[in-house]
């Protein structure tokens, strides 16, 4: 039995490492190439028999070209109108949405069903401890009469380590290969132009991906399966699993072309950005729906479990296992799926999982601040509330932001000071300098907040600059509370502003809305030595702010360092270890070359005092053992990515090398899969974007660009 297990383990490890290094058995054929060897008649006969099984391929219709629609663009979030974007010369097709069915009640106009080549997304997540392994299957089917290429821009968690990619054609599964991005794109184009079914997965942002599937014949279905790992966020005893379902409409500053455009269905190319998300208009619905299930297994009994975003069915087979399924009536992919659970063992405790493989040792550590820091009190603070009042915040998001600042102003201490800044097309301060938190000033602040209306662009860099660049009162800790949905395409500009001008401030980012840009929120907080929090449209804003004030009412745990001892810990990420706030745990990932001996010593400082703690280490088994090196590599890629984006070191080569070695997606790598077994008929197809729902609570008319004459299509 032991030997059997050893073999299975070795076989599993063969995925990523060389088997002979692990198992010492030989093989008579192992030392010589045998490609041309045809010794065994059985083998040769089998080859011939297999070849005889090949059947002629059925003919397929050839591609059709259709007459052009050519017009010019306007945009909605206009600060400065950019030059008209002329559609490409080959944009030669008529607009023709098709009314297929009605499905709403009598009170409202019926939704217009729009045929799209993405029919269904199926998500199966498995959570063991604090690591989630997620399988996402996108089912593409061509509803048109010509061969198509489908392009779908979709979100994944910003820390997802995307490690597997499988294309299913009929009942055949073809594993995609990680490649340097430009090479993958070239291979895809070559295969597509020769008529092969092919697919390409690229990363546009850490949380935005583009899936392209080429040569889908009329009526045919192709599935794309993506697998990723990530660690769960945890705070105040709650673990949180998030699956984003739609990319929010992003604003791009004038002159930018490398952003994420947001265009209405039928207005392709109007944004002028390299990546575009196409949105269905109000009153339109595609047949694309989503199914989601989570298999949750915990080391200790589960006390509470709930989704704060969706209706779910929860089945508990025992106290450490739960199966969660998205309810059938809640399957429109228009907001983040959020599942929270907490364990019955009381306070969350620090812990680490470790695994050793051929490349060395890897670990992930959940570091929970010791309860002792809650005995210490903070000093006075200079609170800067910065509120995004751009068009994408109009409606319920700005109402939530106002409610949050309302609540926060009521929680300030007498010795504190505060400032309120709004930004849309430009930034505007409530007062020339921070005001003492007197009752009169608080009332003034409330009036300013009440007056805020959303509209216009999202010049977030201006907002961040106004929040950081003003004289600092050294007697106060400066905390920037930044409330936004994060719907911008120039994240790197904002992050660079933080990296260059943070000064003595800490940034606490609050993502407001149903589908916020969590990547930006987390990175702002990480670079800003603060923490991210999220305020969904149905959350109690006062409660969220109360939790925040509890967090900052104690000094942070700073200068965290892991004692390498004999463990040989190295390559710890994030490279700059975050500060810890009461109730909020952080995840670290590192490597080791020596022996961990069941524990890792951690040293930190809080309010001038040294804090020591010991974190127990458990050997990882099962899927966790496979995931830990990938999680480490993904954390390293995130660190390198931010360094690169902010111009603070790291080269594309470093990112590319790590991503290729671990087989992971990155901005400079991509998955490509080609079915070289057959060619579809015709030499080209028609490219069709997959339009998606606008996120719940976001107004289409203030966020999405359209061609002027496109709205009636």
């Amino acid at each position: 039995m032991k030997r059997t297990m050893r073999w299975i383990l070795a076989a599993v490890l063969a995925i990523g490492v060389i088997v002979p290094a692990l198992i010492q058995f030989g093989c008579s054929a192992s030392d010589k190439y045998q490609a041309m060897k045809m010794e065994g008649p059985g083998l040769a006969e089998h080859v011939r028999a297999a070849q005889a099984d090949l059947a002629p391929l059925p003919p397929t219709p050839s591609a059709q070209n259709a007459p052009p629609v050519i017009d010019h663009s306007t945009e909605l979030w206009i600060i400065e109108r950019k030059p008209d974007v002329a559609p490409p010369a080959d944009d030669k097709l008529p607009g023709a949405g098709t009314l297929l069915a009605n499905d709403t009640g009598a009170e409202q106009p019926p939704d217009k069903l729009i045929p799209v080549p993405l029919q269904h997304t199926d998500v199966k997540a498995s959570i063991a401890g604090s690591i989630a392994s997620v399988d996402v299957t996108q089912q593409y089917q061509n509803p048109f009469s010509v061969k198509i290429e489908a392009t779908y821009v979709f979100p994944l968690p910003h820390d997802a380590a995307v490690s597997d990619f499988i294309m299913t054609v009929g009942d055949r599964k073809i594993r995609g290969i990680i490649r340097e991005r430009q090479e993958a794109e070239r291979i895809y184009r070559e295969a597509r132009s020769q008529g092969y079914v092919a697919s390409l997965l690229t990363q546009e942002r850490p949380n935005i991906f583009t899936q392209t599937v080429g040569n889908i014949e009329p009526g045919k279905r192709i599935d794309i399966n993506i697998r990723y790992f990530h660690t769960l966020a945890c705070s105040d005893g709650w673990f949180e699993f998030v699956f984003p379902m739609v990319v929010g409409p992003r604003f791009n500053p004038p002159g930018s072309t490398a952003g994420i455009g947001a265009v209405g269905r039928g207005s392709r190319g109007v944004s002028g950005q390299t990546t575009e998300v196409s949105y269905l208009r109000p009153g339109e619905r595609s047949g694309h729906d989503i199914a989601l299930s989570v298999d949750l297994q915990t080391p200790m009994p589960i006390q509470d479990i709930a989704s704060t975003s969706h209706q779910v069915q929860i089945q508990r087979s025992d106290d450490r296992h739960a199966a969660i399924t998205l309810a059938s009536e809640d399957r429109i992919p228009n907001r983040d799926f959020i599942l929270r659970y907490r364990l019955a063992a009381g306070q969350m405790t620090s812990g680490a999982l470790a695994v050793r493989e051929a490349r060395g040792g890897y670990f992930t550590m959940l570091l929970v601040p010791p309860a002792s820091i809650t005995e210490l009190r903070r000093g006075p603070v200079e609170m800067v509330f910065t509120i995004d009042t751009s068009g994408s915040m109009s409606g319920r998001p700005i109402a939530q932001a106002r409610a949050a600042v309302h609540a926060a102003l009521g929680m300030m201490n007498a010795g504190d000071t505060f400032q309120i800044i709004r930004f849309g097309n430009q930034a505007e301060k409530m007062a020339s300098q921070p005001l003492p938190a007197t009752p009169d000033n608080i009332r003034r602040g409330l009036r300013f907040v009440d007056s805020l209306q959303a509209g216009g662009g999202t010049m977030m860099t201006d907002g961040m600059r106004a929040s950081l660049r003003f004289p600092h009162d050294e007697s106060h800790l400066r905390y920037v509370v930044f409330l936004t949905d994060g719907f911008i395409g120039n994240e790197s500009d904002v992050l660079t502003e933080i990296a260059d001008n943070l000064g003595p401030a800490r940034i606490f980012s609050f993502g407001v809305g149903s589908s916020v840009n969590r990547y930006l929120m987390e990175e702002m907080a990480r670079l800003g030595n603060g923490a991210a929090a999220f305020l969904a449209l149905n959350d109690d804003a006062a409660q969220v702010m109360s939790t925040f004030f509890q967090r900052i009412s104690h000094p942070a745990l700073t200068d965290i360092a892991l004692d390498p001892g004999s463990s040989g810990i190295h390559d710890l990420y994030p490279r700059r270890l975050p500060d810890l706030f009461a109730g909020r745990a952080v995840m670290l990932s590192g490597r080791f070359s020596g022996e961990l001996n069941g524990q890792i010593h951690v040293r930190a400082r809080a309010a001038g005092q040294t804090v020591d703690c010991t974190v127990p280490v458990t050997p990882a088994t099962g899927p966790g053992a496979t995931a830990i090196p990938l999680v480490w590599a993904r954390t390293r890629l995130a660190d390198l990515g931010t360094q690169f984006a902010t111009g603070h070191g790291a080269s594309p080569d470093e990112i590319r090398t790590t991503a290729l070695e671990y087989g992971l997606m990155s901005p400079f790598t991509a998955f490509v899969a080609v079915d070289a077994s057959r060619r579809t008929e015709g030499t080209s197809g028609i490219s069709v974007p997959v339009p998606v729902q606008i996120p719940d609570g976001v107004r289409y008319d203030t966020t999405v660009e359209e061609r002027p004459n496109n709205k009636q299509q």
Partner: protein
Amino acid sequence: MKQLLPILLAFPLLLLAAAQPANLPPDARPLPPTPAAAQPAFRTLRIFLDPHGKPLAAYQFQLAGDPGLTIVGIETGAVKGFTDPPYYDPAALAGGRIIVGAYSLAQDLPATPTHVATLHVRLAHPDIAWKAKLITAGTRDGTPIACDILISEGEQP
């Protein structure tokens, strides 16, 4: 009956209309045609293993060719017990080597000559040769198997 006739006649037409493909969306855009210039070729290479009567539970092999040989997909062959497509070693691939492997926990395993995998490859030029080298193979209990390995090029599509 006369009143029902138009409905009965219209019903098949409605069914027919419902079965029609949808019209192309306004965003549809023709893709560029295939260039006239010579392009790299895409081919399939089928990998066969003969475990000589032993139940094959795991294998690993290396595909060797010149740098113009690029792997663009991996598919399982006609082999019982191995349902998932074989894996590849990304670290080896980053170093220019193509190493492919698979394992099965099934009870019913192949013991005769078997098509274990199909590799989808891109050939930069038509003269590329390739070879397969078995690295290891074994039974469920870890006993090594002296397998023969063979590559057969798939039909040209």
